[in-house]
């Protein structure tokens, strides 16, 4: 079949990668982007987008407890999911967050990193496009394979699933800060199989789901997280780990 010049032009346009298509260039140096694009985003259309604010310290002082914070407020009303991962981690995925309408598009959590790595937060908007926020963190490393701090404490099992928390009034939100006692074993420390919280839901007083959060063992021991809500209505946090233990907290 012979193509005329218009068809060729169209083909050439499609052949261009999505990110060079008027979008931003990758702001971090990454050797793994194509892999994660295919594996976590199913190769779907994406743009590198600075409006997805992903914050982390420039370096990891404690590679076992690295604070990251995602803010996708620029896409209010359009977001379906937010995924986060650390590209050079043995266990890269951090969370898969599905925020409902009463929850702001912000999430803070602490993670483990094994070495200096690019970090990503990918926001899926209703039009099917992934908006990818990026940052880079330096590290001496070893956070994923360091011996458990929780397990070193005698009687830690008795505290499993205890939740410390509090609500705070922010200028534009009601913030829930939570810390859940759990070793979050990632299977990389000798002789200890995977044992980690993998599901969380934030519900209102009537049990309606306000946000869903899938967690992965890149999340630190005793996970510490912040969720920002639009109102001050009562909430319940429901958690489950991969051994089927369920925990609840009310705030």
């Amino acid at each position: 079949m012979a193509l005329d010049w218009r068809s060729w032009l169209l083909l050439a346009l499609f052949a261009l990668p999505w990110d060079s298509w008027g979008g931003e260039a990758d702001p971090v140096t990454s050797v793994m982007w194509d892999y994660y694009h295919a594996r976590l985003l199913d190769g779907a259309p994406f743009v590198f987008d600075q409006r997805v604010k992903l914050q982390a310290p420039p370096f990891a002082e404690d590679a076992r407890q690295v604070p990251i914070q995602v803010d996708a407020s620029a896409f209010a009303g359009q977001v379906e999911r937010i995924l986060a991962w650390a590209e050079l981690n043995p266990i890269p995925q951090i969370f898969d967050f599905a925020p409902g309408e009463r929850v702001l598009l912000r999430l803070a959590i602490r993670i483990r990193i094994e070495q200096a790595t690019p970090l990503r937060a990918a926001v899926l908007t209703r039009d099917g496009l992934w908006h990818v926020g990026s940052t880079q963190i330096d590290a001496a490393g070893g956070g994923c394979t360091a011996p458990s701090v929780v397990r070193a404490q005698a009687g830690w099992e008795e505290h499993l699933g205890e939740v410390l928390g509090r609500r705070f009034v922010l200028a534009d939100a009601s913030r829930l800060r939570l810390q859940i006692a759990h070793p979050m074993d990632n299977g990389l420390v000798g002789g200890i199989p995977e044992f980690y919280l993998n599901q969380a839901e934030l519900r209102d007083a009537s049990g309606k789901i306000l946000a869903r959060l899938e967690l992965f063992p890149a999340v630190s021991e005793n996970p510490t997280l912040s969720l920002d809500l639009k109102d001050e209505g009562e909430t319940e946090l429901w958690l489950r780990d991969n051994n089927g233990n369920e925990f609840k907290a009310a705030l």
Partner: protein
Amino acid sequence: MRWILVLALICCSLAARADFDYRLEPRQIAESVWLLEGSTDNFAAANGGNIVNTGFIVSDQGVLVIDSGPSRRYGEALRQAIARVTDKPVLKLLLTHHHPDHALGNQAFADVPIAALAGTTQLLAEQGEAMAENMYRLVGDWMRGTEVRLPTETLTPGPLQVGNRRLQLIGLRGHSGADLAILDETSGVLFAGDLLFYQRALTTPGTPGLDLWLADLERLQALPWKQIVPGHGPLASSAAPFKQMRDYLGWLDGVMRDGAEQGAEMNELIRTPIPERFAGISLSRYELIRSVSHLYPRYERARLRRVDR
């Protein structure tokens, strides 16, 4: 072909050797008291980790050395520097605390007693290897051959007689958990270790709490000192380092206390503006990021309560 390679290697190694010279210049700050002042920068390949103040006191019997520096090379350079000043033998090395910039030159003092508080020896045994590894990452080849060498003598706080010099050893813990300050009674020089940083942001890994640190400062300031050698930063003969430390510790404590009260996240706290009055203090942003990582978890836990059901 092969001889070119050999020649090139020799040239490289000569150049490298010339580069790894700490050029230590002891400065006499009082009768028989000498200071080796490091920079107020961070660890870097450019400075070989020489960001620390070390010193020595020459008694009629021999030399008492205070801290061994960040690497084997530094320790050896320190020995040579001492030998340029006096032909008296080194009698003893005192460690102010276990941090790598103060205690990784110990190998150069293998022939004399290395004395430290019991807590210092324990902390160096626990953390030394990891700290040394991190130093290799930060300053590279300057560290070549450096290994942890533990103290061989345990110090108890109180008077210490070295030849004709009487010293006061003060056992504290605000900076690292086991901190030794040394007052030379003859000259009135106070080697404060890292309980005092001056014009350089203080570091907090291992501090048992900023309140304890503040209490330690009070004890130190009350001593009959005439000059102060901070662990990092310039020599002082006024109480300015104490004033700055108190101000800075109070600010740091306030940032984290208020942050925990208001529900701030770590990433928000590390972007706190640095007050104008600390503009002259080196590395304040960098150390704020580190301190928030070290200490904020304690502050935030204190503000949270049990909410599980």
